């Protein structure tokens, strides 16, 4: 299935693009999307513990299941204001 991935701030810089499509096997979870991104990007490993995930605009745990067409956003610590 195809998942849309968004990344912001430091994560966007490490990823190199603000968004990308990922092909994941049916039954994949948010953590699998993260692992797919982290492959070959060692810098992402250091970000994992401070990163939150949102699926279709709502914060979800990393073990949340994904469905075809979901939009998964990876959010580093926020700093607006």
């Amino acid at each position, binding site marked *: 299935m195809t998942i849309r991935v968004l990344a912001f*701030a430091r994560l966007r810089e490490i990823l190199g693009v603000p968004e990308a499509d990922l092909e994941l096997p049916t039954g994949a979870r948010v953590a699998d999307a993260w692992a797919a991104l982290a492959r070959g990007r060692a810098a992402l490993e250091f970000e994992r513990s401070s990163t939150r995930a949102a699926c279709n605009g709502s914060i979800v745990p990393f073990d949340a299941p994904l469905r075809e067409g979901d939009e998964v956003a990876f959010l580093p610590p926020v700093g607006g204001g």
Partner: protein
Amino acid sequence: MFAIVRDPIDLRELECIVRPGDGGVATFLGVVRETAGDGRPVTGLFYEAFEAMAVHEFETIAGEARERFGDVKLAIVHRVGELRVGEISVAIVAAAAHRAAAFDACRYAIDELKSRAAIWKQERYADGNAAWIGA
């Protein structure tokens, strides 16, 4: 009015939320400072947002403020992109019949925005370096 904007914030648009029964209007403006938290000179800030989520969070925060402080109307607008020193990054307007609710809601909104909203800030220093600032 809840928005992420790219152009300079127009406070007059936010003030349109004031209703005929409102006697107190509390406003907060966040302004880009010339120094970072650690004292280093800053040439500007770069903000980015997950716009749909940030705007939804603004609405949620406004709803929470109404639950806590009563009938108060809020406008929350955050700017993104490159900002220079002295420019306004965020504007919050809270209007209520009396000043206590307006102040409380305004302060609640900026506190919650800073800790929760999907917005990121990069400090850009005079020496050419830059750093993302996390809450």
